[in-house]
């Protein structure tokens, strides 16, 4: 997972589907001829059929593996995708992402756990962090308000910082 997703290659997909259509039609022709009594065409039909299945497998695999990467984006970035990444998703993939978010949110709500938190075992309660970008005000559990300005350092509750660290806003200093 390196955070890149190339644009959905609509042209290539269309080409593959076109090729499948042609292969299929050739096969239909030869099957019809065979029914009419022509022999010896079976091997050609078989070969084309194998190619059709292979194309199908490659296409579905392309879609499937992109889907896995998009799914990973939810766990890394959250529910809102950065514009430049969103740009590389096709319409149907964006719809998939929206439905996935909804489904996951429902599940987490019924279970009572935010599964996108607590990704690592806790070692200490408070941690030292440095702010990497201007973020603004941040309220901790006990009500204290902290101003997160670029380069400022703070000693904050680990559980509150976790998601800000993963998003690159804070840096954990050991």
């Amino acid at each position, binding site marked *: 997972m390196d*955070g890149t997703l190339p644009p959905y290659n609509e042209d290539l997909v269309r080409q593959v589907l076109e090729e499948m259509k042609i292969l299929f039609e050739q096969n239909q022709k030869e099957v019809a001829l065979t029914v009419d009594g022509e022999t010896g065409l079976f*091997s*050609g039909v078989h*070969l084309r059929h194998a190619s059709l299945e292979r194309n199908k497998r490659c296409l579905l*695999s392309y879609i499937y593996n992109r889907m896995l990467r998009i799914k990973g984006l939810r766990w*890394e*970035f959250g529910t809102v995708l950065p514009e430049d990444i969103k740009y590389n998703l096709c319409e149907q993939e964006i719809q998939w992402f929206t439905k996935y978010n909804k489904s996951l949110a429902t599940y987490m709500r019924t279970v009572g756990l935010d599964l996108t938190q607590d990704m690592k075992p806790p070692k200490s309660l408070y941690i030292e962090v440095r702010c990497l970008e201007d973020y603004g005000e941040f309220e901790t559990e006990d009500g204290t308000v902290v101003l997160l300005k670029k380069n400022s350092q703070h000693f904050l509750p680990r559980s509150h910082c976790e998601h800000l660290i*993963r998003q690159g806003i804070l840096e954990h200093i050991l």
Partner: protein
Amino acid sequence: MASGAPPLRSHPSSELDYFDIDDIIATQGRIPSKLEVQIYNLGFLDPSSEGNDLQAGAKLELPLWLSKELSYKDGYREVFKADASVVDLHRLGPYFYEFGTKLLHFDFEENSQMASSMQETFIKRFRKIMDSSQNAANEDASLLTSKLDHIEKQVFSAGRKGVREFLQWETGNTSKLTTSETVVNHKKRKRSMLE
């Protein structure tokens, strides 16, 4: 503890591998095959043929997925006869083991020989891979891994990862929370785009 490794068993891996990109790439590798029958209208597959049709006896290098499909008994005759002795396993590069194990699906006489020689090769190389992964903790590994097959590369990085994580644990660095790698790369790209 069990003495000796359990015998190599082939199990239908297609259920695990349909969407697996590595498997798709591995089955793309070519295997020399001889056409047993004539195939009409597909003459274009053989660059050396002149007519519309593929002639019986034509020698073609077919991708493994196609060879596998067609070498089943087709009616009463075998359509293609794949030639194992001609396949140079060493030229297969990064997919040596995966491609090799797929060749076992064909009913070659040489199958058991190929299987045991692959197993021996793997075992011999594994030792060296393990040793070098434990010692080259932070050096650039590209020279070492350039000669490794795809699966061996995974073993090598797992070894290195283990060493690295152990060292981190020793120095108490495991509890450091980090920015998600995806986010880091995204920011890097954004920055470079703005420059």
